[in-house]
């Protein structure tokens, strides 16, 4: 088993942190995981990605060539990485931020308005946690309990509210199938 997840968006959205939390949760689940990042020179606003590989074997090759799950929180990053999604892959988007999907054949697409919900109920910056909870609810790749633990262990600021945002994402994933 080797699952490859690519989370992409813009610098400042917490893309890389979301990947780190996911990877740590997988490790806490007793699996092997690596997380790799790519970002621009700008402090904010450039496209960035956070690649997570989860496996039951040690991961010697940490590069994603074709991902099983693509999570996108911006249009430019989706345009850049859509081709890396496997034909059988799952695409998850923030519906307010991604309007156009520049590829016809995609097995499963799920969307939610994570940033809007985060702004209204939590904080804008916590949209990443809503996306993470939603993605996990849809795919079941890690346990929610370990994600909660990972947020605490990673010493994320305002961990309690972040965990609430995460749980909100999980809840929404169950409502909408």
């Amino acid at each position, binding site marked *: 088993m080797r699952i490859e997840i690519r989370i992409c968006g813009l610098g400042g959205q917490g893309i890389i942190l979301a*990947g*780190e939390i996911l*990877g*740590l949760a997988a*490790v806490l689940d007793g699996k*092997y*995981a*690596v*997380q*790799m*990042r*790519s*970002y*621009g*020179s700008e402090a904010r606003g450039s496209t960035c990605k956070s690649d997570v590989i989860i496996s039951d074997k040690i*991961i*010697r*090759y*940490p*590069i994603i*060539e074709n991902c099983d799950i693509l999570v996108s929180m911006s249009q430019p990053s989706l345009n850049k990485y859509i081709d890396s999604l496997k034909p059988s892959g799952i695409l998850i988007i923030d519906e307010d931020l991604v309007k156009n999907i520049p590829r016809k054949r995609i097995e499963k697409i799920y969307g939610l308005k994570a940033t809007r919900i985060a702004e209204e109920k939590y904080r804008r910056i916590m949209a990443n946690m809503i996306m993470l909870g939603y993605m996990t609810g849809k795919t079941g790749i890690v346990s929610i309990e370990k994600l909660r633990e990972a947020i605490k262990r990673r010493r994320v600021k305002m961990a309690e509210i972040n965990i609430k945002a995460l749980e909100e994402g999980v809840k929404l994933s169950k409502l909408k199938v």
Partner: protein
Amino acid sequence: MFWQGNVACAEAAVKAGCRFFAGYPITPASEIAERMAQILPEVHGIFMQMEDEIAAINAIIGASWAGAKSMTATSGPGFSLMQEGIGYAFMTETPCVIVVVQRLGPATGQASKGGQGNFMQARWGTHGDYSAIVLSPNSAQEMFDLTVEAFNLSEKYRTPVILLADELSAHIVEPVKIPERIVVVDRRKARDHSEPFFGSSDPKGIPPMPEVGEGLNILVTGSTHDEWGYRYTSDPDVHRKLVTRIYWKIEGNVRDIADYEADIDEKAKVGIVSYGCSSRTVYEAIDRLRGRGIRVSHLRFRTLWPFPDWIVEELAEKVNVILVPELSLGQFCREVERAAHGKARIISITKIGGGEMITPKEIIEVVERI
């Protein structure tokens, strides 16, 4: 631990005894300074953010003479700025660790993208004759292990050691195991004037190092000096004696310093030699090739300099072809080719730009065409 490579490096430094860090933030090495700023105060160490990399290298040299194990971390542009100070550290035989996380150059290049273009600079960056110890990790685990090793070699040989990481090993987040027992080597310290501070009757000798402030009246200079540190700016013998010893104390111990991973199939006719991030692609390429019954050997260097020539030559005697994948335009390959002494055909596989890695497919395609 589920650590980023840079974090593992900082944690290892403190475990190896580092108590002074001076640096200037630069991607992709900044997290080392960030972590050091958090953890050094907890062990009564000192973290200093400097005005630039020139100040950083000079600060760690000073700290080392004051008795501390010291470190800085930077990337290409900062490493270029540090070269004058690094030369001073070689000449004055100052133990210290310089972490260089390679990014794409020349100049500012592509700041956040990985490359392996500092291979030669790490060895030949400053002027004059000297020999450098350069280590290169390929994982977060080795960012930990080789940082400890860098400090130990630095203390043992009384010399600066360069940890030449790359964007992958620095930024990858993966499981890191802290060894139960960490061997820590400390410098041989001069307590009195019974042995000179800058010379030895052994042409490969490593003199004891005094600490400033302990009343031993130390002279430290980057100019040519005799065994007690007195300047001799024109005497040929003093220069020859000092610089050949500084050179041979490293080159003459290459077998002690060499550290590598060998995955040798005695019947393979194809070999691959790699280091750093490119080696992780090689692992995958070899798995796929062996899955198809194609026999391949792999050498991966943790020690880049002094270059372990004989290991390459031994491989070259067994195989017909050696592939050398790297994220630079043939710097590493040039050294492999020299060490192979014409005993195997060398094929260079290079890629630069955007932080893109060489893919397993690209290596496999070259093997198929042989």
